[in-house]
């Protein structure tokens, strides 16, 4: 590992008891944070101290700590997933911060992602968008054709894969001034639009998923591209363009 050292930091952390209460930023000084620690390990350290002092630890979502489950979701110094590009909060390391630095830690802010407690938000709206069409209607019976009976052009297969790597974290929404979920919806729509398996239901899928996103209170897309910049998986804006084409074609033919 690279040379590690310890730093002292000041944290301003959003504390909110529950969905109903009003929250506020609280300040904590934290000493001896190893620069090899991840951001969440730093919060573990803070929580350990809070517990030992008889205070209530900070609540935040996390699970895999490998940048793949999409649970972690912190707004750090005004950026979703903090400084650096293409990293999730759990992959952010303390070597990205300076000794003596003050770090602001807040939850995602969006009407469709209400705060549950402290830094944890409710992102079930994302699930409901997927219920509206994020699947291919094929039975899981196993009576399908041989997998290689359907060759798929590598270029499309690769693009579909790239779109499918979205982890559903919601950073795109948090980054957007309209709190639009376009990048997230487009990633799923694109994955299927690029694959032959997705064609049959393509029209309904895009119409229903977009409709559900609006119903959940996500805003419109005004093409600023902030989402792409903050997306930890590098989901490309091209997907939004593809979704718009699909949407237009579907609306005209319905």
């Amino acid at each position: 590992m690279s040379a590690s050292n310890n730093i002292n930091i000041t944290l301003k952390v959003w504390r909110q008891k529950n969905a109903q209460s009003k929250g506020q930023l609280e300040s904590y000084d934290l000493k001896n944070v190893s620069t090899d620690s991840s951001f969440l390990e730093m919060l573990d350290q803070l929580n350990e101290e809070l517990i030992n002092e008889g205070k209530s630890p900070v609540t935040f979502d996390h699970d895999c700590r490998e940048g793949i489950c999409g649970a972690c979701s912190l707004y750090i110094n005004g950026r979703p997933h903090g400084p650096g590009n293409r990293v999730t909060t759990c992959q952010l390391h303390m070597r990205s911060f300076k000794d003596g630095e003050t770090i602001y830690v807040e939850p995602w802010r969006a009407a469709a992602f209400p705060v549950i407690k402290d830094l944890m938000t409710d992102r079930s709206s994302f699930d409901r968008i997927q219920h509206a069409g994020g699947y291919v209607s094929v039975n899981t019976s196993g009576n399908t054709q041989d997998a290689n009976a359907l060759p798929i052009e590598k270029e499309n297969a690769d693009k579909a894969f790239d779109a499918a790597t979205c982890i559903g974290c919601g950073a795109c929404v948090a980054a957007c001034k309209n709190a639009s979920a376009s990048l997230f919806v487009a990633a799923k729509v694109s994955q299927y639009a690029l694959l032959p398996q997705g064609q049959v239901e393509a029209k309904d899928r895009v119409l229903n998923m977009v409709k559900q996103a609006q119903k959940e209170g996500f805003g419109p897309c005004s093409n600023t591209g902030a989402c792409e910049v903050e997306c930890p998986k590098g989901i490309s804006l091209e997907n939004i363009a593809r979704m718009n084409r699909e949407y237009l074609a579907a609306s005209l033919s319905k």
Partner: protein
Amino acid sequence: MSLDSKIPEGPLKDKWTNHKNNIRLVNPANKRNIDIIVVGTGLAGGSAAATLAELGYNVKAFCYQDSPRRAHSIAAQGGINAAKNYQGDGDSTYRLFYDTIKGGDYRSREANVYRLAEVSANIIDQCVAQGVPFARDYGGLLDNRSFGGVLVSRTFYAKGQTGQQLLLGAYSAMNRQIAKGKIQMYNRHEMLDVVLVDGKARGIIARNLVTGEIERHSAHAVVLGSGGYGNVFFLSTNAMGSNVTASWKAHKKGAYFANPCYTQIHPTCIPVHGTQQSKLTLMSESLRNDGRIWVPKKLEDAQAVREGKLKPVDIKEEDRDYYLERRYPSFGNLVPRDVASRAAKERCDAGFGVVNNDTKEGVFLDFSSAILRYGKEEANVKGIENPSDEKIKELGKKVIENKYGNLFEMYQQITDENPYETPMKIYPAVHYTMGGIWVDYNLMTTVPGLYATGECNFSDHGANRLGASALMQGLADGYFVLPYTIGDYLADDIRTGPIPTDSKEFEEAENKVTDELNKLINNNGSKSVDYFHKKLGLIMWNKVGMARNEKGLKEAIQEIAELREEFYKDVRVPGELNELNQELEKAGRVADFLELGELFARDALEREESCGGHFREEFQTEEGEALRKDDSYTYVAAWEYTGKPSEAVLHKEDLKFENVELKTRSYK
């Protein structure tokens, strides 16, 4: 109770087909009157929930995350096996079966493993139909790679994100059923007990993790797909929330726990950085297709590397010890995981470790040869004449990036070192648990109506799991096995009607759960939950880890019991029961780990042989290889709970090998 594995009669290759033809079915109209609870939405639980709902049952699915899509299966990297023989390299159902039995060191059931191999090909068809974007070659056909312990290429993959893509496939199948109202999804819910009525599993007690409310849920059968228990070691590659609670509560209600000591220590993980470490990160086994593992030949070089005075790239070829290639020429870097892990430990114990941390543990995983090899190939393909070394490297790096890009990125994020330029440093870490709840051929536990699927059962991997076979097993259980076998049991329930939740059984179970949680909350101790979890992890790693011996195991049993006592005296759980309380969630899980750990050590003590991931120092060959004792230990150890984990009662299920001959595994 005697253990009946319910293995069907007949020749190995006909067992599953015959069984399916003979078991009872529930007609579609009656399925509508039957409720099934599925705990877990990983590959096993997610695929089971979707398929059961599709068949017509009413499914209630539970997970502790905020969405089924975040189950730990999402993190699987390297791939999924299937006996498709697309590469025409001689693969077959039999070969996959044989490799799995051998890889598991002859400690798994022939019939189960054969069935797994048999349905494996179907999994790929199914996933492709769902739109899972597997890697493809230029002809548009599916691509394969190799994993450890086998000599064919049968692993399907989606870069280093195979688990993610497969789970999103299962999640999409669930979404379709959620939209239809056939699955009721309970996110952020943790199951804290199974409820038995008249000896049958009829429901669960769950805590709503947002409100803190304790809830009763009933069903005609309960299916667990709650994952593995590697986190008993505190540090592992599992997700932070992965736990044994669902399995352990089932165990306490009568489900036997099988082979708890069979744990897989994965050879290629990023070494520990320091005391704040919260989890370990796997570098997929697929990297061993192209990476070569080595340590310096000279002790002084190893020391100089640790001190930062010598760069690995400056160590000459002849001064490097590619110890896997040296010891196992025929499998080389692709030996099974248990073998690779022990070999790394052996080198580090001898002082050749290259990482500068407390334990000096770490070896190199080097891609420089592969970069050159691929670079030359690419130059040929592209018709570049006399390419410069620079050009070759550049082309080679591109190929490596295409195959493993996200893993290399992840490595660099964590270590701040560029693996394209300098070898990765890796060390073994706890990764997977082959042991788990005992199930029969139908995946039913010893509690009627309670089933276990995926990593939480013990079924298919014996004493060591081959890479890319967990995903295969999870999906096989959930898509193709359980949905059939459960019908046989539920055929008796078509007239039962809804199971009421106001019975005394539900009330008692709920009260017990509430009492236990209140006890933790009101304990007013002085130490955090993590303090105990870390301590438990250290005992496990040092005494019940990669190498075990009688003395250490006895000490571990004692120390864990003492730690558990201290936990109940001195743990501090802040907050309330009736609110979102992550410390309380952790406390409950660690309480169960503290019991499991003891049984785990007891099982390891009882098994006086070395097999697969279970290595007893007393039982090894002169060359340091695992020494099995087939005469005495060719059985599954199934433990019955009686009150104290160390006093559990052992039941033996003898393993009969009728189709393969027991041999000493050799990868030389």
